[in-house]
């Protein structure tokens, strides 16, 4: 487990640079400790760092690193959640300083689920958790979900991204079916389709006309951000 201690040795004396403050914020997130994050946020704010900078260069950068450490088996799911929780608290502290609208950068609304006939949901749930930790609104509809369930949920929550997980070569076809159904419903242009699961490849995603393929949860977060430009 990597739990970085936050040292305060820089507080007295020299004024810290923005880079140093950002690093401290990021380290605080990686420590997965709420108190560290709150202290680092307060310090950065008092030093005159802009709230958006604190979030993007500090907290979000730390969350990305948490994702990488998770994929490498160095940090575990509870730590990811603790870091996400700490990040939420840190952002909440800054919200009152932000211009209205600034904090409410429209997050993606994501419907995520495992396709019909497939009960594998461990990886899909990790992807949901990581997307949620990254600040997206995630509706995880579960496993072994018929195409109709995806379509209904997408309409209900007005989603702009749908994640389709398939862990078996025999159920990958279900991903194609959802894409076809989206076309039939006239929804295809309004939504980004993201595929994942061990047997899925970029070539399969291209073949069935998906917008994004991600190999793991961290890539999924990166991919969604990229594709939506957020």
């Amino acid at each position, binding site marked *: *487990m990597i739990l970085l201690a936050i040292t305060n040795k820089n507080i007295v004396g020299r004024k810290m640079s923005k880079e140093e403050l950002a690093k401290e914020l990021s380290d605080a997130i990686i420590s997965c400790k709420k108190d560290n994050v709150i202290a680092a946020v307060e310090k950065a704010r008092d030093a005159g760092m802009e709230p958006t900078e604190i979030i993007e260069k500090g907290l979000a950068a730390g969350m990305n690193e948490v994702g990488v450490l998770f994929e490498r*088996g160095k*940090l575990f*799911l*509870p730590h990811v959640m603790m870091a996400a929780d700490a990040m939420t608290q840190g952002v909440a502290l800054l919200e009152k300083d932000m211009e209205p609208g600034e904090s409410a950068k429209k997050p993606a609304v994501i419907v995520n689920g495992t396709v019909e006939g497939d009960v594998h949901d461990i990886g899909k749930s990790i992807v949901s958790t990581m997307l949620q930790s990254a600040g997206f609104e995630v509706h*995880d509809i579960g496993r072994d979900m018929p195409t109709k369930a995806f379509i209904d949920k997408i309409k209900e929550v007005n989603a702009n991204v749908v994640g389709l997980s398939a862990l078996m*070569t025999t159920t990958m076809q279900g991903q194609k079916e959802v894409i076809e159904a989206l076309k039939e419903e006239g929804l295809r242009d309004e939504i980004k389709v993201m595929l994942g699961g*061990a047997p899925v*490849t970029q070539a399969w995603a291209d073949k069935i006309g998906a917008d994004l393929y991600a*190999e793991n949860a961290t890539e999924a977060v990166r991919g969604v951000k990229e594709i939506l430009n957020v």
Partner: protein
Amino acid sequence: MATEYSIRMGDGKRVYHDKKQIMDDLEAGIADAADLGEISGLSSDETERIAEIIMLEGRMVGVEEGKEVPVTHDISTLRIDGDQGNSGVGIPSSRMIGCMMHERAFGADTMELGHIDYSYKPVKPVIAQECQAMEVCQQNMIIPLLYGAMPNMGLYYTPDGPFENPGDLMKAFKIAEAQESIEKSADHLTRDMIWIMQHLMRSASDGVNFDTTGAAGDGDMYSTLHAVEALRKEFPNMYIEVGMAGECVLGMHGGLEYDGTTLAGLWPHQQAPLVSKAGANLFGPVVNTNTSKSFSWNLGRAVTFIKAAVEASDIPCHVDMGMGVGGIPMFETPPIDAVSRASKAMVEVAGVDGI
């Protein structure tokens, strides 16, 4: 133009690579394993040897004479009468026929009796039938016959079991509650697996196979190691096999330990000593196949991980070789060119004791 060799991608697709591409991919795969597992890579001789195996002529290859190793089988009879979605070939038959076919026709060195659901929990209500099937098979067979199933701890979480789903709790930031749910499920699973095996041992089973250990994360592994420990104490001569679900133990709980070692995040070479310590006789390490990478990349990576596990293990390692593991493509009928080459490399370069 350089000679091109027909190989596979991780999803089974056929591609043509020249030797340079094969070597580059092998080296990248080896480096990936060395980096993730913090283990040493392969020597240039070993890398070259794997490349030679990949480039061998002939659709199917075999190990050199004198280097043959035993093969143990999991999931057992399902391979015959299960359909493709169930990892089988869909031939109507009985479980005993499946076991005997493996013994007498396929040259299996050990065999396993399993249940159609293939998880421990659903064996409980049909324990009498499982015991009877074990007795009848034992009366007809000579090779060691184990009982096998998956710990599959997910069956203890809602909606399938009594404890609240840690995934749901986690998403609601109820971290301590999620961990508690995992701990409770692990205790129940340990208890059930011991109870089931006590019955099967009384019905002449030669031992047990814990297949896909760790599938539900560190709790699943924790539970299995405790079951192994208890069974070893009660049945000193029992044959105990622990096969893994994936290369790295997923940290769903994060804090569970066995013998002072945190289970989450362990790689094959770190899993082996713990499995042995708990009292198993045989370890089945796994390395996952990346469907987007080439066979060379996957095989270099898998051999590097498995070689380190074999070196760290004081019990025999029978590497898990099949659809989507051990460098083999993820494809319902794994292509024989890749299966036989990966197996040869595992024996001759990684030094596995069996498959």
